[in-house]
């Protein structure tokens, strides 16, 4: 069955390109009157079309220049070096108002990525679990997960973001923060948790990285030397992560920074702000619901006989799911899931609604400070295009890998 499925996929592109019966090729394009032959006519259309497009572009550029000149403006990206002058509530990258507008944009982009990456991860996990539960034999679980999927899928994302944000703002004010052993605090300012500090800095990270690579490379040889089975890639990766952590612990003196109650806010520690939490939560739940449906569809698309065959081999329910159903479902799901990921990336721009300083916000501010709206909107389009294209590319590659696996 697996093989048939893969063969089907291979067969599709072949069918999509039917052989064209072209007339015998004329000796030259100029041999006969151009409009007499099909190829000639196509050539004319191409040339005229290109000319029109080119003229249109020139005209637009011209009008743009005239319009800008009339307002004493010019197309120029030099404004990106101007100091931003405004503060940001939360950043992943180090930022200060003295930095340039370009750095403000990069900082905003990093904030957006933080939402997109975590959102995609959580949505995938949630979607997988809920999708599997949707087809479980337990009616209660089916109803609960079905309710979640239908409610979340059929309400606007913006509304959901505002909903979670409003809920989070119902937490106690900062002076009456809920405290867990004076280490973790929960209030309107968000969730404050202790922060791990590595004092070794970059060198410690470098050493740990080297350790991880070493573990990854040496593990198969060590196994061969010890006459044990060579560990799979997953296992080696886990071992490498473990190695990374161990070296870091050994090399870098570590300290814990506790959040401390200030007059208005907490100082030190790490913060999960209501804005970030609401945005990420809403994104994950929203995309998760869609992915759950995809997973359900993928699972239901696997022929019943496959499960029965697994059962007759004496495999457990979980083994059937893991070894037989999911690998086949994955092939069908992956292309649609990548659309969801791209959706998550684009929807991070809804952050403006609740004041999370994302890429869109940073560019709006930049446009406002500098007045260069055309350059700004251009950067904005590029800024959303590039990560979505990268995501699409990665998912395509993953998909090809799956197809290849199915074939072998």
């Amino acid at each position, binding site marked *: 069955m697996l093989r048939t499925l893969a063969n089907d996929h291979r067969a599709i592109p072949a069918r999509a390109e039917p052989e064209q019966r072209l007339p015998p090729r004329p000796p030259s394009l100029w041999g006969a009157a151009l409009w007499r032959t099909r190829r000639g006519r196509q050539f004319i259309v191409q040339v005229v079309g290109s000319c029109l497009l080119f003229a249109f572009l020139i005209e637009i550029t011209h009008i743009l220049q005239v319009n800008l000149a009339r307002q004493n403006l010019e197309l120029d990206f030099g404004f990106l070096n101007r100091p931003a002058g405004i503060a940001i509530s939360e950043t992943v990258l180090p930022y200060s108002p003295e930095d340039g507008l370009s750095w403000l944009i990069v900082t905003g982009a990093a904030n957006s990525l933080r939402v997109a990456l975590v959102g995609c991860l959580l949505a995938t996990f949630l979607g997988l679990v809920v999708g599997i539960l949707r087809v479980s034999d337990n009616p209660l679980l089916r109803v609960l997960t079905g309710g979640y999927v239908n409610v979340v899928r059929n309400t606007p994302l*913006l509304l959901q973001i505002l909903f979670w944000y409003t809920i989070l703002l119902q937490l106690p004010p900062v002076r009456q923060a809920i405290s867990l052993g004076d280490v973790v605090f929960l209030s309107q300012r968000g969730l404050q948790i202790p922060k791990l500090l590595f004092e070794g800095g970059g060198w410690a990270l470098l050493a740990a990285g080297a350790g991880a690579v070493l573990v990854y490379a040496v593990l198969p040889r060590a196994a061969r030397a010890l006459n044990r089975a060579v560990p799979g890639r997953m296992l080696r990766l886990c071992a490498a992560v473990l190695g990374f952590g161990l070296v870091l612990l050994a090399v870098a003196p570590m300290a814990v920074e506790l959040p401390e109650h200030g007059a208005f806010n907490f*100082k030190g520690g790490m913060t999960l702000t209501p804005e970030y939490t609401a945005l990420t939560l809403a994104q994950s739940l929203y995309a998760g619901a869609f992915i759950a449906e995809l997973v359900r569809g993928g699972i239901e698309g696997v022929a019943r006989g496959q499960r029965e065959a697994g059962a007759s081999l004496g495999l457990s329910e979980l083994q059937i799911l893991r070894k037989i159903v999911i690998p086949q479902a994955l092939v069908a799901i992956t292309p649609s899931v990548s659309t969801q990921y791209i959706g998550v990336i684009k929807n991070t721009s809804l952050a*403006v609604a609740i004041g999370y300083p994302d890429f869109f*916000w940073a560019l709006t501010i930049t446009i406002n400070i500098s007045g260069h709206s055309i350059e700004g909107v251009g950067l904005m389009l590029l800024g959303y295009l590039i990560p979505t294209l990268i995501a699409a590319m990665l998912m395509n590659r993953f998909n090809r890998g799956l197809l290849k696996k199915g074939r072998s």
Partner: protein
Amino acid sequence: MLPSFLLTSSSGRALTAAAVTACLATPVLADQTLDAVKERGVLKCGTALDVPGFGYPDSNGVPGGMDVDYCKALAAAVLGDAEKVEFIPLTTTTRFPALQSGEVDVLFRQVTTTFTRDTSLGFLSGPVTVFDGQGIMVPKALGVTKATELDGATVCVTPGSNSELTIGDYFRANGMEFKPISMDNFDEMRSAFFSGRCDVFTSDRTYLGSIRSVAENPDDYVVLDETLAKSPLAPVVRQGDDQWYNIVRWTVYAPMIAEEIGITSENVDDKLSEGAPMIQRFLGKQAEFFEGIGLEDDWAYNVVKSIGNYGELYERNLGAGSAIGLDRGDNNLYFNGGLHYPPPLL
């Protein structure tokens, strides 16, 4: 591949529109804003419709406020009818792209005149309509009396406003830290402040007054005495159309001159027959006096008749007669100790 916000949100749409129209708008038409407005028969005025005192619908849904009234005044001056105006609601972040792209003819939208806006955005600022200053509002329960006590505070500030820049300067200059929260949507931001997400709201004093006026209990909040920055609010037009700039300028002055020479919306018709030369000139009774501005002779009459003089305007929207209840203070005419000093009508 477009981020959804670019098309669904007001700011996204305005930004996209700005970019698209800047590319496509025919240059010839836009040079002559006056002709364009006359031909269209309606003035497109960029304003806010969610800021009490400046632009806010009353209980019947009819917008009113300082900026809205000035939009009407301009429509009255140009088209002879204060109702021939289309209010284009704009946020602090959408207002400039909207003007640049030609989506609106003029901005009466609480814009603080600054050097950068005049020189880098391709704009010209008109005369000041309201002398404002950036203030700080806190809940009384916080027990704060001075801005210097605010180290570590979370501050609500409107995005794209000059307050956003000023507050950063202020905290840095005093060696203090703060976290800004800025949202595109005024209503969302107000509720974030009222629910306690921010300790402080900073903006122009008039705007703080207007936020306070819609609080559940306005007395729970106090605007501190300190003024962090000057904030002269003025209309804005695009560079490159001098005639239109002059029309906007003198439309702002007209209600002030009316107050100066004792004309109100009530007595303006009686004044038509009065012989004082200043009044005669103002009401268009002196032949060809107003020729140079390109408007009908009775434009100033129409302005005062429809919105009143500056004193009436202020009292109705920001002063004692309004929910905001601010003193006239700096916004008195010069001879009453204020800063408004309209040039002579000669």
